[in-house]
């Protein structure tokens, strides 16, 4: 028999204003194997935690159920209290009666209280079947791999090397620097990009810890956090690199218009990168029209690429610096100069005579050829009339789009991408620059279009996070991994095919073929459990018996109440 303690939280008024907490406590006392049930004003306060800790000791509890908010934020805290009071943290079960009950049934206190009782009963029935788990540790290879040698990759690699970590930088092109090489200067401070790239490259070349692989492509990735093996093709030669952590810094590319605004047909119609390469070479158009949001914020590619407005502002000022008599017009749908420095740049551009004209998605500008120059016809939404602008250059501000080969890398590393092909981090707020796959990190525009400064911040953040397992020298694996019962396993291999992480193998054990889970590689999704026809495969903390008991409990308490 288990000795379960149930603690119901008032969460001030958040729960108690809807749910009759004391009634739920009384109900919990009637549940099997419950030794003590109590309530706290705030379970997560020092006082509430102390009460749980004392109760565990006083009543010799071996299971704890807290009915409060969401495990997604508070489970680690209550697990820690269990550990402090001497019980294994996997013997704790969370019941959500705030987000999933009191807050969403605020006008129905009676039914909400009844539902809270059933949720508590379900949690208690699972808790009774919880088992002590041991978290496995595995060693970490003290080497990092950075994929991509643009600003993000260079910054991440330089930061890792500065932390004393052996780092391999893999770049598919024949030189480092990526997109940054052609840009010339960075706004808002107008730093020279060549100098920035050179200083980062010098940092790397000056260190014995840095290994730069040019003309190299990632071919195969095996392993898991702490123990990866990445195979690269370096100029036709295969090289296997063992590593503890991987940073993805593959960047993005500028969208190439497909004939819009005469691009490709009319000379003088160019992209931002083409303009920047021209400006860097010292040439500058006398009359320029920038067209914003070409190929973005429209059906099919709805997102705002974030950096194009700022790039336009920067290049406007750059043109006016080179040729003070130049005319610059910007036709836009909205100017998104986010942040203080960029807003300042917008003001500066306006002061220097850059004209901002607004167009609508339904009325795109028309670009035609006229006597050796170009004519831009737009419907100005502010003036509500058509305007013709004569110009020498039409610069199309196109969005950054994901690289064509990001899909290949996503498959190799088993990390997700969004619908536009940008990589998806584990959680934007709680786990930035980390992938859900442990030991793999993401930074720069491969994640989302970012300014150079943002790219560098993210790269340093990713390098700092990648250094954590390497510096610790070991990784702890959350005990929600799967295991297979050799007595039930028929070695059908469904689990092997189902596992997205190649963590299950069929191996011979005691003269019999059985499925075996590599715990360090298992991410605890439980896909193999549902694929198993023999109920041999189980997931720790989510066994079929535990979930089955929750269903039985719901059946019992819901249907009995009906009768």
């Amino acid at each position, binding site marked *: 028999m288990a000795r379960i303690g149930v603690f119901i939280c008032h969460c001030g008024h958040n729960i108690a204003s809807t749910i009759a907490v004391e009634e739920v406590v009384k109900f919990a006392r009637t549940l099997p194997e419950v030794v003590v049930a109590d309530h706290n004003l705030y379970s997560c306060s020092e006082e509430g935690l102390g009460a749980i800790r004392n109760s565990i000791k006083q009543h010799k509890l071996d299971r704890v159920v807290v009915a409060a908010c*969401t*495990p*997604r934020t508070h489970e680690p805290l209550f697990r820690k209290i269990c550990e402090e009071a001497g019980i294994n943290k996997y013997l704790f079960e969370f019941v*959500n009666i*705030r*987000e*999933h*009950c009191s*807050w*969403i*049934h*605020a*006008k*129905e206190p009676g*039914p*909400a209280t*009844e*539902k809270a009782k*059933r*949720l508590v009963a*379900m949690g208690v029935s699972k808790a009774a079947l919880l088992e002590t788990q041991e978290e496995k540790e595995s060693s970490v290879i003290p080497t990092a791999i950075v994929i991509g040698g643009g600003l993000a990759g260079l910054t991440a690699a330089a930061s890792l090397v500065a932390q004393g970590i052996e780092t391999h930088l893999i770049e598919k092109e024949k030189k480092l620097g990526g997109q940054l090489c052609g840009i010339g200067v960075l706004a808002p401070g107008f730093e020279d990009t060549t100098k920035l790239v050179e200083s980062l490259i010098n940092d790397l070349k000056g260190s014995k810890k840095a290994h730069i692989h040019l003309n190299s492509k990632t071919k195969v990735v095996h392993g898991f956090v702490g123990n990866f093996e990445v195979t690269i093709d370096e100029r036709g030669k295969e090289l296997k690199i063992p590593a503890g952590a991987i940073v993805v810094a593959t960047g993005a590319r500028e969208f190439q218009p497909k004939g819009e605004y005469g691009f490709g047909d009319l000379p003088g119609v160019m992209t931002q990168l083409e303009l920047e390469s021209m400006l860097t070479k010292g040439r500058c158009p006398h009359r320029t029209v920038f067209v914003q949001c070409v190929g973005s914020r429209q059906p099919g590619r709805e997102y705002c690429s974030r950096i194009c407005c700022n790039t336009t502002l920067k290049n406007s000022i750059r043109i006016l610096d080179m040729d003070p008599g130049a005319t610059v017009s910007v036709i836009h749908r909205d100017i998104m100069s986010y942040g203080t420095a960029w807003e300042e740049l917008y003001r500066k551009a306006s002061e220097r005579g850059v004209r901002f004209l607004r167009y609508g998605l339904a009325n795109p500008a028309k670009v035609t050829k006229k006597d050796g120059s170009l004519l831009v016809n737009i419907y100005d939404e502010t003036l509500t009339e058509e305007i013709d602008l004569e110009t020498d250059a039409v610069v199309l501000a196109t969005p950054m789009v994901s690289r064509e080969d990001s899909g290949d890398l996503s498959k190799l590393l*088993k*990390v*997700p*991408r*969004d*619908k536009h092909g940008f990589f*998806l981090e*584990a*959680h934007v707020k709680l786990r930035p620059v980390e992938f*859900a796959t442990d030991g793999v990190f993401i930074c720069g525009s491969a994640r989302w279009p970012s300014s150079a400064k943002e790219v560098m911040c993210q790269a340093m953040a990713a390098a700092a996070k990648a250094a954590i397992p390497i510096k610790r020298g070991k990784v702890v694996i959350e005990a*929600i991994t799967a295991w297979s019962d050799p007595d039930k396993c028929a070695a059908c291999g469904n689990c092997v095919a*189902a596992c*997205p*992480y190649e963590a299950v193998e069929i191996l011979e054990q005691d003269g019999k073929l059985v499925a075996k889970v590599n715990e360090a590689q298992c*991410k*605890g*999704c*439980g*896909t193999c*459990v*549902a*694929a198993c026809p023999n109920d041999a495969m189980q*997931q720790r903390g*989510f066994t*079929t018996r535990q*979930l*089955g008991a*929750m*269903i*039985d409990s*719901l*059946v019992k308490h*819901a*249907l009995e109440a*009906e009768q």
Partner: protein
Amino acid sequence: MTEFRPTILAFCCNWCSYAGADLAGVSRLQMPPNIHIVRVMCSASVKPEYALKALSQGIDGVLVLGCHIGDCHYMTGNHRTAKRFPIVQKLLNDVGLDGRRLKLDWVSAAEGEKFQKVVTEFVEEVKRLGPNPLKEVKF
């Protein structure tokens, strides 16, 4: 006769739909109190047997919610969910239980409103279907 209040069991994946349900809570979106969420790590870990077990014991409806296709925390887990549950629905129809008592949908961590909509509509649907006939059957 008292109003029929269906009992509904829901499986929500930890990363998207459970978080979507949390967001609905944080946003105070109101919905009928019939749904009981079991948290799983991935919708792909929900055994069809769980739905069959619940429905055979008289639970009125089972809701399985996962991440949108392409957004699965485990990359392709929900592809399996998407293939698996239509078969279970067909099976339910074949044995004479309405397949509509089992519903599969996708709710992201950012879709509190969608969670509210899915739950509200499913509760309405199950109310229309009436009590699970197996409630009366004692095995």
